[in-house]
């Protein structure tokens, strides 16, 4: 049966099945051999005799079985047998059979290795070196066998020259597939290696990894290298990777085989590291600078990819460059030969190299120098020649260690170059000077003078660099503007020319090329995404903010009209927002990166950022950042959506977007400082105002504005106390004083009294009479609560002077005006909400009176009129837009509730107007039952607030109610139960000592109910 394994006609998949069958059978043999009693022979004899088998494949399989048992006996050193077996296996050179044989060897002997700590090591069978050697040799042999699986392709293709191309291609694909099918056989060796007990960190770094890599490089096969790299990343422990990062990364980068897909390897590696970091944040060794390790390599890698991208789009870029140069014409094209053309291209596509001349290895000084991708010698010359001149200039701008802006058109000699960099620097200085004068960057000026405009791109890159280094905030802002403008113009011209040449070139060819390039770029962006993700887990904001230069370099060099690229860039942008919140905007290049997103995707970007900010735990907010973020997300507000359109199937998205925006709004307005909060609210309102989200977001905005008013109103307490008493002790001291001071404002504090009621109960002070209001203790109590509640707030308000108070007063005036005008705009769209919001605002106006009273110097004389306006408006809304009876009924109850308890500054006359209006509306309700109940309810309007108490009016309401029910009884006996409600109200007022209630009426009612119900 073992002989069957000699076949070469099976594909790996079927060969594997066969192998498994044989493997199972051989297990029995293994059992037999291991049981000495059964065969009663010396193992050494069997070992010898097995080698006489005729065919090599069966012979070796059997030999491995016996060898395995031989080692177990410990008669002989394990390492000798293992070496013997490894050598003998060389006898099979057919790739597939050989691979399986090796696999079998490893499988059978995996528990017979003289690993450190194993029984075979104790028995003197060797040590970890031997164990590793055994695995490594087999690994290498397997690799060699594996790589030879390709040979078939070559053989086939030469043989089948005449055959159809398709067949060759199919064959090729099939063989490649076969090749990948057997990868597991090789991978398992690595797995066993990683499982060695002796595979310590040290051993891995010093011996294991270098040897594996050595072997790997001698196999010039991209697919295999790719797979092995990935296996290495997957198989060995996190700790090993962290300490061996330099070696591993170097190795990955060194492979110049285009088939090796760095990105996947890097992505896997970065993901692994991130998982490790996430689970043991503290264990990370400090001495390993992951950031710089990766950063250095990524820079190289970004170059590679962009170069390829540039090469692929050579034609278009060349056109671009030549257009560009012709129009600006300060450097002649004549010197350029076709080779230079290519260099030009690569130069234009910006090669970012890590500046090796600078020995700054710490993360704070990651100098990225942009040099043209000419021969390295030239670069060095350039840098040496330029150092003197440029450093002089640059040092003036505190740009320590930044190399010269070497990005340039080709065909310029070094002298030219130096001159130019001087010009750039002058130019740059001009920029700063100008901006200091009028805060305008002189981009326009730039484009007017031909010499300057020629350097447009140059200065653009200078800016990037200086961005990275410059700590001067002023400069930073200027430069980023500069950046974006240049970037845009560059992109535009680039896109235009690209499109032109695209049309001219052979399409099919181009498309394939472009797709490939896009794939590359996308993959690269994914790598950067993972890198940033890892760094976010590891480093502080400053380090992370440096990272954006990488995606930015890419973005400024590729065609941003591509959807996939846009998506990837959005992913990268959004990621830091999830962890740093709005702080992300501080990152260098972040803003330019945000700008680079295609218009079409701006809306998506906006929502992604909002999602990220909602997810983010870090919610510190600064006004500038909010202002800034709006510049990038305002697009979403301008979307026109008709939610009343029956055929709009995206209504749900719309509403969930609204909810997101609400949450976002709460996050950005979660600020203690009143000024900032006010500004943010108003800013948001400004942005939302003309969009379709206004209606949905306005209630939220109004509530937060009212909250500001409330916060300001509370300031009264502190200042009031301060004026009443010079010394401020601990919060308990408030009691005695407030008891006195509060009485002056009896009515004003009405709302506090109602609320103190509950607090009283809460405290376990379960006095049944506690609902009777306006007893002195309650004042004391409520004030105590208030002072305790806001004791912390007082601290923040301590330094408020009269100026500030005036300022706040202005805010409040504005807020009321703003709420009023906006509510009028939307009231017919959301009548129910508008109705309530008007009333809520009225309450806020009412409470604000406390603040005015406490600060006599404030000017706000028409507060009462404003309050009245906010009460009459909802009544208009009620008449105009609230038509459903149930809604009307609810609204009346609601209005009575808020009016009777929380409004106190109205003149009695105005209040009576409103109250009688409400009562009339109640009377006009359609159903008798609704009429009756709402009239009963309206009676409270004339009772609850002592200021407006009018016992007669209460009785009028009740009597009207009685009449209504009596009338309705003529036609319908069902409304009898309403008498019960009326009786209940009568009793309520009777108990509350309304002297107008007559015992007779009460008795009549009781009799009436009694008759009807019993």
């Amino acid at each position, binding site marked *: 049966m073992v002989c069957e394994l000699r076949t070469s006609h099976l594909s790996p998949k079927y060969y594997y099945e066969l192998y498994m069958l044989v493997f199972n059978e051989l297990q029995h043999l293994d059992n037999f051999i291991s049981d000495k009693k059964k065969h009663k022979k010396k193992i050494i004899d069997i070992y010898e005799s097995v080698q006489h088998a005729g065919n090599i494949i069966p012979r070796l399989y059997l030999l491995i079985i016996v060898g395995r048992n031989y080692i177990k006996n410990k008669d002989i050193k394990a390492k000798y047998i293992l070496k013997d077996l490894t050598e003998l296996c060389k006898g099979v050179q057919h790739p597939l059979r050989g691979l399986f044989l090796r696999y079998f060897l490893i499988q059978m002997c995996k528990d017979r290795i003289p690993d450190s700590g194993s029984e075979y090591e104790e028995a003197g069978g060797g040590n970890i070196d031997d164990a590793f050697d055994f695995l490594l040799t087999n690994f290498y042999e397997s690799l060699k066998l594996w790589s030879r699986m390709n040979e078939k392709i070559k053989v086939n293709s030469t043989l089948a020259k005449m055959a159809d191309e398709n067949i060759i291609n199919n064959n090729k694909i099939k063989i490649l597939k076969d090749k990948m099918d057997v990868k597991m056989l090789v991978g398992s060796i690595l797995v066993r290696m990683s499982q060695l007990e002796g595979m310590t960190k040290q051993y891995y770094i010093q011996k294991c990894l270098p040897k594996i890599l050595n072997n790997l490089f001698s196999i010039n096969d991209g697919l295999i290298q790719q797979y092995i790299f990935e296996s290495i990343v997957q198989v060995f422990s996190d700790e090993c990777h962290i300490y061996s990062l330099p070696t591993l990364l170097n190795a990955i980068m060194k492979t110049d085989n285009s088939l090796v897909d760095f990105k996947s390897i890097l992505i896997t590696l970065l993901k692994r590291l991130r998982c490790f970091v996430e689970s043991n944040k503290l264990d990370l060794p400090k001495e390993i600078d992951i950031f710089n390790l990766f950063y250095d390599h990524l820079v190289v890698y970004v170059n590679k990819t962009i170069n390829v991208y540039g090469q692929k789009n050579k034609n278009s870029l060349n056109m671009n460059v030549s257009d560009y140069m012709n129009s600006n014409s300060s450097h002649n094209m004549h010197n350029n030969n076709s080779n230079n053309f290519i260099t030009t291209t690569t130069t234009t596509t910006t090669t970012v190299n890590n500046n090796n001349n600078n020995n700054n290895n710490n993360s704070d000084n990651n100098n990225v120098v942009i040099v043209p991708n000419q021969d390295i010698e030239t670069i060095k010359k350039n840098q040496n020649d330029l150092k003197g001149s440029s450093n002089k200039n640059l040092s003036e701008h505190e740009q320590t260690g930044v190399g010269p802006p070497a990005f340039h058109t080709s065909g310029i000699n070094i002298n030219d170059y130096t001159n130019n960099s001087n010009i750039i620097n002058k130019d740059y200085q001009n920029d700063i000077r100008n901006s200091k004068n009028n805060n305008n960057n002189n981009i326009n000026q730039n484009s007017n003078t031909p010499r300057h405009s020629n350097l447009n791109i140059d200065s653009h890159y200078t800016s990037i660099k200086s961005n990275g280094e410059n700590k001067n905030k002023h400069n930073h802002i200027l430069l980023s503007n500069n950046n974006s403008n240049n970037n845009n113009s560059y992109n535009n011209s680039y896109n235009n020319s690209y499109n032109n040449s695209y049309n001219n070139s052979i399409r099919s060819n181009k498309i394939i090329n472009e797709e490939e390039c896009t794939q590359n770029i996308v993959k690269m962006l994914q790598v950067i995404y993972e890198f940033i993700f890892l760094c976010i887990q590891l480093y502080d904001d400053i380090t992370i903010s440096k990272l954006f230069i990488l995606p930015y370099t890419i973005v400024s060099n590729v065609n941003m009209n591509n959807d996939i690229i846009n998506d990837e860039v959005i992913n990268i942008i959004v990621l830091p927002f999830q962890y740093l919140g709005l702080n992300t905007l501080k990152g260098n290049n972040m803003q330019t990166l945000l700008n680079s997103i295609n218009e079409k995707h701006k809306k998506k970007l906006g929502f992604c950022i909002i999602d990220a900010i909602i997810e983010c735990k870090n919610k510190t907010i600064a006004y500038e950042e909010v202002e800034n973020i709006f510049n990038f997300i305002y697009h979403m507000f301008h979307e026109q959506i008709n939610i009343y359109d029956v055929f709009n199937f995206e209504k749900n998205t719309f509403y969930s977007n609204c*909810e997101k925006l*609400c*949450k976002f709004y*709460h*996050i950005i307005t*979660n600020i203690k400082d009143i000024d900032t909060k006010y500004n943010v609210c108003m800013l948001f309102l400004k942005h939302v105002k003309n969009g379709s989200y206004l209606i949905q977001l306005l*209630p*939220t905005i109004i*509530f*937060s504005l*009212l*909250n500001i008013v*409330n916060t300001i*109103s*509370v300031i009264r307490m502190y200042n009031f106390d301060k004026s009443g008493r010079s010394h401020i002790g601990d919060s308990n001291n408030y009691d005695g004083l407030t008891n006195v001071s509060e009485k002056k404002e009896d009515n004003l504090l009405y*709302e506090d009294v*109602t*609320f103190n*009621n*509950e*607090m009283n*109960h*809460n405290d*376990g002070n*379960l006095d*049944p009479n*506690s*609902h009777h209001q306006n007893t002195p203790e309650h004042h004391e109590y409520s004030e105590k609560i*208030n002072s305790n*509640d*806001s004791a912390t*707030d007082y601290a923040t308000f301590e330094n408020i002077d009269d100026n500030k108070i005036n300022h706040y007063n202005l805010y409040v005036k504005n807020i009321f005006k703003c709420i009023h005008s906006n509510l009028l705009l939307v009231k017919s769209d959301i009548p*129910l*909400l508008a109705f*309530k919001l008007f009333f*809520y*605002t009225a*309450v*806020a106006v009412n*409470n604000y009176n406390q603040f005015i009273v406490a600060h006599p110097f404030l000017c706000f004389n028409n507060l009462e009129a404003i309050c009245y306006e906010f009460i009459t408006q909802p009544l208009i809304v009620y008449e105009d837009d609230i038509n459903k009876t149930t809604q009307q009924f*609810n609204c009346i*109850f*609601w209005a*009575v*509730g*808020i009016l*009777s*308890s*929380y409004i106190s500054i109205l003149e009695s006359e105005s209040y009576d107007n409103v109250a009688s209006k409400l009562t009339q509306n109640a009377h006009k309700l359609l159903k008798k039952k609704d009429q009756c109940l709402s009239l009963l*309810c309206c009676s*409270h309007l004339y009772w*609850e607030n002592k200021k407006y108490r009018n016992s007669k009016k209460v009785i009028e309401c009740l009597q009207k109610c009685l009449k209504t029910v009596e009338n309705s009884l003529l036609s319908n006996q069902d409304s009898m139960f309403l008498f019960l409600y009326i009786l*209940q109200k009568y*009793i*309520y007022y009777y*108990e*509350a000592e309304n002297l107008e209630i007559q015992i007779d009426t009460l008795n009549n009612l009781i009799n009436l109910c009694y008759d009807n119900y019993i």
Partner: protein
Amino acid sequence: MGEKVEDIGEFVLIIGDFHSPMRNLGLPDCFKDLLKTDKIKHVLCTGNVGSSENLELLKNIADSVHIAQGDMDDNFNFPEEISLNIGNFKIALTHGHQIIPWGDVNALMHWQKKYDSDIIIYGHTHKNSITQYEGKYFINPGSATGAFQPWVTKPIPSFILMAIAQNSIVVYVYEEKNGKTKVEMSELHK
């Protein structure tokens, strides 16, 4: 909640007045963690759930969820008043904006006469409270999110957990302060 469930009776969550996302971001994180439990048998909500997100949250806490219609629940349709029995106790549940003056125990007393309940649960005022009045308990869980209400100077997020046993109820009042939960326990007898 160290005690065993059978000793202490059935857990009833009283919560309401979320108003999110209209008035605030939502439940405080510490509350969210607390509510990730399967020990709660009943949920009584005083209304104003705000969004379907909150509604889902309530429905996931227990099978028996009772929600009263709040004054801002225009998108939902809940009953205005709910009366139910848990253990030996009769409970009446309403949002309370229909009962004037708002949050007034005496008015609530009158309102509940048709149910003759032992416990009356109401909301709307955004201030938690437990009141005994004429042999009945009036419980207000406050606003779970600390939602803004124009007449409340500083709303504190709060909810109430009741453990209803044979003849007594243990009430836990949860309040959020500076990101941490503060619990106060008290015992009510029938």
